[in-house]
Every structure is written in C-alpha cells, then in structure tokens.
C-alpha cells in the first residue's frame, strides 16, 4: 500500500510537472503574435526574446527569423541571429535565410563568411543573380566597395550576362567617382527595367559639376531613346532646360504616338519643378509638341497648358498662337479664358480683353469671372485709364475688389478713400505678394496727413506703368513738398530704392541719405539699411559699417536691427556672405 501511494505521488508529480511545463511553453503562433506585439510597441528586446521562442518551437519559420533580424538590429545585437539562421538553412526558403546570413556576416565585419554564404546560395541557384545582388547590397551598406565590385564581376562572369546587376553596379561606380561608368550601367539597368529611368535621373543629378559634361557626352554617344530621355532630363536639371527639350523632341522619331505623348508628358512634369528663367519656355515647347502628337480634348488641353507656359515665359505671341488653335472641345473654358485674357491684358489690349470676356461670360463661373474682370481692370490701370478701370470694378464687393479699388483710389490721389478701402480688404486678400505690397503701400501713406494728393497718385501710377525713371523724379518732387516726418522721408526712401534698382547709384545715395533723417525715426532705419546695402555694392565697406553701427545704436528698437547686424557681420567678414 505504501508502495502504491509512493507510485501515485510520483505519477502525480510527473503529471503536474508536465502540465506546468506545457503552461510555460506557449505555442509558436502565440510567441510570434507576442513578438509582433512587442515589436509594434518598440520593445525590441522583448520582441527578440519572443522571436527566439517562436524559432525554438519552429526553426524554419521565415516570419520569426526575419522578425528576429529586425529586432536585433536596433539593439546592436545583430550577430545573435547567426545560430538561428544557420539552423534554418534547408528549412526556410533560400531567399530568406541566405540574405540574413550575408547581411549579418557583413555587418559584423566577417567578409569571408558573407562571401561563403553567397557562394553556397549560388550553388543552390546557379542561374539566379540574387546571391550576388544580396552580397553587393550588404557590402555597399558597409561601404566595402572592393567586396561589392568582386561580387558584381563574379556574377557577370558566372551567369554569362555582362549587364546583370547593372543597378547595383551603377551605384557602386558612382560611389567610386566613376560617373561615366555609372551612366553606362544606369542605361543597362533602364534597358532591363524602364522604371529605373527616374531612379537613374535622381542618382545622376547630384554628380559634381566637373563630371557633368562627361556624363552628357556618354549619353550622347548612346543611340537609344532611353539615353536621349536621360540626357534631356539631366540637361534640364543642370541648367539647360531648353537644350534638353530640343534634344528630346528631336529624338522622338521612332516611338508610337502614345509612347511619345507619355514621354513628353513626363518631361513636361519634370520641367515644372525647375526654376530657371528658361524653364517655362522649355515646358511650352514640350507641351506644344505634345499637342501636335495628340488629338481632341488631349490636344486642346496641351495647347492650353502650352499657352500658359508661353505666357509665363513672356512670349505672348506664341501664347496667342496656342490659344487660337484650341478647338471647341476645350475642356475648361474658365481656365482658357483666364489665360487668353491674361495674354491680352499683358499685351496692353484691355479693350479686346473686355470683348473676349463678354463673349465667354456664359461659360465662366462667377468667382472666376470676377477674377478675370479684376485682371482686366488692372490692365486698364497699366494703360493709364483709371476711369475705365473703375468702371470695370463697379459691383465687385469681394475683399480682392476692395483691395483693387483702394489701389485705384490711391492712384487717383484720393489718400483717405484709398486707405479706407485697403483697410476693408484687410491683410489677407489676394496672394501673399499682393498682401505684402498692400502693407507696404499703407506704410508709405501712413505719415502723410493730406487727404488728397493727386501728384503722389500720378507718381505711383507711373511706377505701376513701368516708368520707374519718371516715377522716381515725381516722387522726389512730391517729397520736397512734404515735411520730412510727414511723408517726405518715406517718399524719398521709395524713390531711392527705385533709383538703386535702376542702377542710378549717385541719385539713389542722395535720396537715401535725405531719407535717413533722425527727424523721421520710423523711416530712417530702413533708409540707412538700404543705403548700407548700396555702399557694400559699391565696395565702400568702411562707410557701410559706420552707417550700420549708427543704425543699430540710434534705433535699437527697430525691427531692422537683426538685418543690420547680419549685414555688418557679413561686411566685416565675420560670417560667410550669403
């Protein structure tokens, strides 16, 4: 009986122990779920432990293996995966386990082991470039370019494909400073996968300036359309968008209409991101070519875009030509009308613009109509016809309308009325530039006490019409009639700025010195800063520094002091010139 009891105790103990053991050992699925949860929370150490548990239960689980690699990396314990990865060889797909081995060996500096792992994988998949690709990638990660180069060469030799791993080779050669070689490799990569076109462009764009001619020469020597596209895009990014556009258009002799359209559209989009002065014209050329190769709505849309681009490039004639060819199916009448009327206004043909607007009126939404209407009104202002401008603005009660009416009133010399309207427009109407211009105009008018000053309006109108020489002279005359602190200094400052922009340095200096009066403390800091900038331009640094010191010490509360201090530092050579 005692023996039986003893045996029962042992059985119970064993059974209980086994149960406890089972309770401590979650299923591999649970461990994996826990690991992913830890990983999601950023607890990499706990995630790594859980992934190890999952692998202990199921050594061939690729998800656990990859998860463990991810978790160990941020902990700086990457090498700990090696025993698990080695154990998983044969149990997990080669494409999972071998890359882990290669990456880990390379990361720990074991180059030979990484190479052996790649060789082992290559023996299992003799026609697959993946082992070499993985080795190149891991080597590049470690900046081990010799190893990467060996891997590329070995792959090409063993697989008998001279262009295999072109993408990797391109990056390797660029890292080594061989930009010509990198360019050739990129072309090979694009030939294999056209999607690399944009990647190649992004990779070659930062090439140092001294290599650029060589890269473009290499591309020029290649006859393919891929090379032309890359050449055109690089020319555009490196400051010659017009040359690039012409190059591309000339090369589009073989592709189908649809393919050409796609290539041109993509290039036009690329040009949109370029800010050089001739980029709009290049874009216009490309869009015009696109229109020629398109039909129906697509052609009209391209012409409309081309018209805008030509307008932006300042070529109103070409813009009109584009607009004249837009078919009746033109997709967005409001946009087309705005572009066409914009061209007419810029051309000084406000009357024709009015007629065109009347014609197109039924198809244009109200808001857009008002915007176009204001543009025509401003066109009348630019022509000097304030009455016509004001007539057009009748009934426009938008905030933008108040702003424009206010400016027209000021140009008529009605200071009080103009200021009231500008005030009603507030600081946010229109574009940022318009708002800034409005605030500057208000600052100019602030010290003037007269309610009406037609001579000032006339001077400002000259400025709006582009006659800056007469405007500066007129402003100076008006200033002479005003006390220094009641607008005299402010108007001289404006006249001085105009003269400086015109390159009339003597006249600018005289006006700015007159504006730098301590009797007008609200204006003097700006005048002194402007004068100091002029003196720096004229290589009169010592005078500029004295002036800037005067500004800082005399007007310490001016918001311009930080700018003055920076210019002083630059002039002294204390900081690099910007």
């Amino acid at each position, binding site marked *: 009986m005692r023996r039986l009891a003893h045996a029962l105790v042992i059985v119970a103990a064993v059974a209980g122990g086994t149960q406890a053991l089972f309770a401590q050992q979650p299923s591999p699925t649970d461990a994996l779920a826990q690991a992913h949860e830890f990983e999601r929370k950023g607890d990499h150490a706990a995630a790594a432990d859980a992934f190890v548990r999952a692998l202990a239960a199921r050594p061939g689980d690729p998800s656990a293996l990859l998860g463990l690699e991810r978790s160990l990396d941020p902990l700086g314990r990457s090498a700990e995966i090696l025993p698990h990865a080695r154990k998983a060889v044969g149990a997990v797909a080669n494409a999972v386990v071998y890359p882990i081995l290669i990456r880990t060996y390379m990361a720990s500096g074991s180059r030979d082991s990484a190479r052996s792992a790649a060789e082992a994988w290559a023996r299992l998949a003799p026609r697959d470039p993946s082992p070499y690709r993985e080795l190149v990638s891991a080597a590049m990660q470690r900046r081990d370019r010799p190893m990467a180069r060996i891997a590329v060469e070995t792959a090409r030799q063993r697989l008998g494909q001279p262009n295999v791993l072109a993408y990797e080779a391109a990056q390797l050669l660029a890292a080594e400073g061989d930009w010509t070689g990198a360019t050739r490799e990129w072309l090979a990569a694009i030939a294999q996968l056209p999607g690399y076109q944009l990647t190649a462009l992004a990779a070659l764009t930062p090439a140092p300036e001294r290599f650029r001619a060589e890269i473009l020469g290499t591309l020029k020597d290649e006859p393919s359309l891929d090379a032309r596209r890359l050449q055109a895009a690089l020319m555009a990014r490196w400051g010659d968008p017009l040359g690039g556009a012409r190059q591309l258009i000339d090369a589009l002799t073989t592709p189908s209409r649809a393919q050409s359209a796609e290539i041109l559209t993509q290039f036009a989009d690329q040009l949109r991101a370029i800010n050089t002065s001739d980029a709009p014209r290049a874009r216009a050329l490309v869009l015009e070519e696109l229109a020629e190769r398109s039909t129906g709505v697509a052609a009209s849309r391209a012409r409309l875009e081309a018209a805008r681009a030509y307008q932006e490039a300042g070529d109103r004639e070409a813009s009109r030509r584009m607009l004249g060819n837009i078919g009746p199916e033109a997709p967005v009448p409001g946009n087309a009308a705005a572009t066409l009327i914009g061209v007419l206004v810029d051309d000084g043909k406000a009357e024709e613009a009015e007629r065109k607007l009347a014609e197109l009126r039924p198809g244009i939404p109200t808001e857009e109509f008002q915007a176009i209407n204001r543009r025509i009104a401003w066109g009348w202002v630019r022509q000097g016809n304030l009455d016509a401008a004001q007539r057009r603005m009748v009934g426009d009660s938008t905030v933008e309308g108040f702003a424009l009416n206010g400016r027209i009133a000021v140009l008529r010399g009605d200071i009080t009325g103009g200021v009231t309207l500008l005030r009603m427009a507030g600081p946010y109407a229109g574009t940022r530039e318009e708002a800034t211009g409005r605030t500057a105009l208000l600052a100019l008018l602030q010290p003037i006490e007269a309610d009406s000053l037609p001579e000032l309006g006339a001077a400002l109108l000259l400025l709006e019409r582009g006659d800056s020489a007469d405007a500066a002279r007129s402003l100076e005359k008006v200033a002479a009639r005003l006390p220094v602190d009641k607008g005299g200094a402010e108007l001289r400052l404006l006249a001085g700025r105009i003269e400086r922009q015109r390159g009339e340095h003597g006249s600018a200096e005289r006006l700015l010195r007159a504006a730098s009066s301590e009797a007008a403390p609200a204006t003097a800091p700006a005048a002194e800063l402007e004068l100091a900038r002029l003196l720096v331009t004229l290589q009169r640094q010592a005078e500029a520094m004295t002036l800037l010191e005067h500004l800082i010490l005399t007007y*310490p509360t001016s918001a311009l002091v930080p700018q003055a201090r920076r210019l002083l530092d630059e002039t002294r050579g204390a900081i690099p010139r910007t």
Partner: protein
Amino acid sequence: MKRRHFLGAAAAGLAVVSVPSPLQALLARRAPWLLVPMDDSQTDHLKAYGVTFRTLERGQKAEWFLNYRSGSFLLPGDAATVRDCALSGVAAEPVEEGQVARIRAEIEQANMDAVPLEKAPKVAVYAPPNAAPWDDAVTMALNYAGVSFEKVWDQEVLQGGLGEYDWLHLHHEDFTGQYSKFVINYAGTPWLTEMIERNRAMARTLGMPSVPAMKRAVAQAISAYVDQGGFLFAMCTATETIDLALASEGVDIAASYADDSPMDATAAQRMQWGRTFAFQDARLELSPTMAVFSDIDGHQVNSPERRQPLGSFSLFSFSAKIDPVPAMLVQNHRQVIPDFYGLTTSFTRRTLKPAITILADEPGAPWAKYIHGQHGQGTWTFFGGHDPEDPQHQIGDAPTDLSMHPHSPGYRLILNNVLFPAAKKKELKT
C-alpha cells in the same frame, strides 16, 4: 485721423516694433559694471567672448565668474563696452557696486569663483596662407566673435615666430606630413594637388628633405613653445598627428607617397611616447591605403569597418576654487553636447597618458572628447572633431554660418580656451 490707427498697425511690421532694447536699458541705467550673463538669457553667447576680449584689448580689466550663471563676465560699465554690447547684440545687465558685492558673496559660498582677466592674449592660428577661413572652427569662432588673431605657418614657426604669441591654435593639420591621407580618396583633385605642391615648396624653401620631416620639425617647435609657457589649443586631426610626429623622432611613419620611402615596418616599437603631449602606446595604422593614423581616435570616421556612430559628450564639473583652469575650460550653459565627427573625433582612453585631465567624455564609451594637460611651463587642450555645428562635415560642404548658431555650446568650449590665457597668472595653477 482714423486711418492712422490702422496704418500704425499695418506699418509696424515694416518699420519699427516695440521690443525691449538692451541699449536703451543700458544707457538709461548707466552703472559702474556690466554683468554679461552666460545662461539662457544671453542673446549671443559667442559674441559675448568677443566683447570681453575687446574690453581687455582696450586695457580694461574684467572678471570671469566661473559657474555663476553659466560662466558670466563682469565688465566695466563704460560707454565703449556698452556700445560694443549693443552693436554685437550681446545681453548685458548694468549692476551697481552693491549688486556686485552680493554676487561676490554668493560666489564665495558656492562652487564658484571670480577669476580676474587682465590682458587680451595675442592669438596665432597655424594655417597655410591659402586656407579658407570657413574650414576651421576656431577661425570661424574668432571671426564671428571678433577676436583678433594672426596666421602663422611652417616658416614662421620654424624661424622662432611663436614666441610673440600667448595662444596658438592648430586645426586639421596632419603633422605626419601625409596630407591627412586624402591622397587615398582625392588624388588628382585640384585642391589636393595644390596642398601637396604648397607643402613641398615650403619644405624645399626650408631645406627640409621631405614634407613629413618638415612637419615633425614644426611639431617639435610647437612642443618647445608650450614647454616655455605657451598655450596650445588643437582640434581634429592636429591633436593626434602632432603627438605621432613628436613620438616618431627618427622613425619613418609616413607612407611612400609623402616621402618616397615606405613606412618603417618596426615603427610601432620605436615610437618615443615620452615626447608627446597627451598620448602613449598607440597602435599605428600600417596600411597606406587606410585613411586612419592610429587607434588614438575612437570613432575612425574614414574606416567603414571601424567607424563608430556619434553620441553626445558630457562636460565634467570641476571645483572652481581648487581647479580654476579646467573649470574655465568647461564653462557652458549646456552640460551634454551632441558629438561631431572629424578626422580625429575622440581620444581612446587606453592611449591617454595618466596625468592628463579629461574635460568631457561620452559616458560609457571607451573614449574622451575634450582633454587638457600641462607640458613644461605651458598647457595644451585637445578637442576632438572638426566643426561642432556640422557633425558630419564632408569636404565641399557649405561653410557654417555662426550667426545661425549664436548659442552653440560646442563653439563656447573653443572660446573658453581663447579667454583662458587672459586669466591672471596666479590663478592658473591646477
């Protein structure tokens, strides 16, 4: 008129706004003293050093209040100093004698001290004549703060010209004469070609057999300058290579592209570490194709296999009354500073001589960042890294504009070194 109310508001952004005016406050409350705080209330920490330096240049006296408001300065409240503060955008508080007395009492009772600053040190920067002013953190700091300095190069050093200066700065010069090993990656580039030609021409002029021999002679002249009481401040690779040059008397440690003869295979055993400032028992990099000199540098930025990531370093805290020199060198408004690379970024602890003082290190890492020591009658300070505000600094990077970093704690450490020689001699014992 009603419109003026609106116009006044609209014009405010363009002309004048009502902001507190340091100058007006100072002029209105002219006091015998100006306190230049160096805590977070300071508007331009770096220029504050320039204001103090120029005060000394004008023959005035100043005081450095160690650990008081992060190392503030007490300057005379005369018109010239007030004007200088206003022009430089440096915050200064007028203080009466009574307030100064209260500050002194506070200093007396805490880990603080008041160190008199007596004379503006005469500063020399060792740099080739064509060196861009924007490629050297110290030159940038001196220019920005407005501390006057002169440039010296090999000829001046070897002809005994250092004697007229109180303070000498070395930046990224390679005193092993291997052109910072740039030949490995930049051979053929115009700037490197020019650098090599200029150094070879100077070696010929000075009758030296090679550039490495000339640079070693320069290193020895600098060592003698410190030995006789000079102050040396070095950054970046100058720290490591000046010691390698000093230790390699009679040993060829330069690659053949520098002196037409390969490195001595037994160089490591023949180094004489007793001659150096800071380091001992370093392992030399024997490969001419590795852009590394030795294992003195902990970060090894140009060796992909060994490169260590950047962390941050912490300044040590010293007793201002007992250890005024290291206390001066670590005055700062930040105690933890982000690290930055240089050809030599840090100094492996294993290679440091026992007698040196570590001023800053990365806790837990096997390297120090900022070290100091005595050498004969003089002192030296080594600061690893190239540019505190350009942590990754690559050749060809845009120059650092210090007006964008007026509170840079890393640059403050450089400027601490410039003012340190101005401290009254009797205080300079550690």
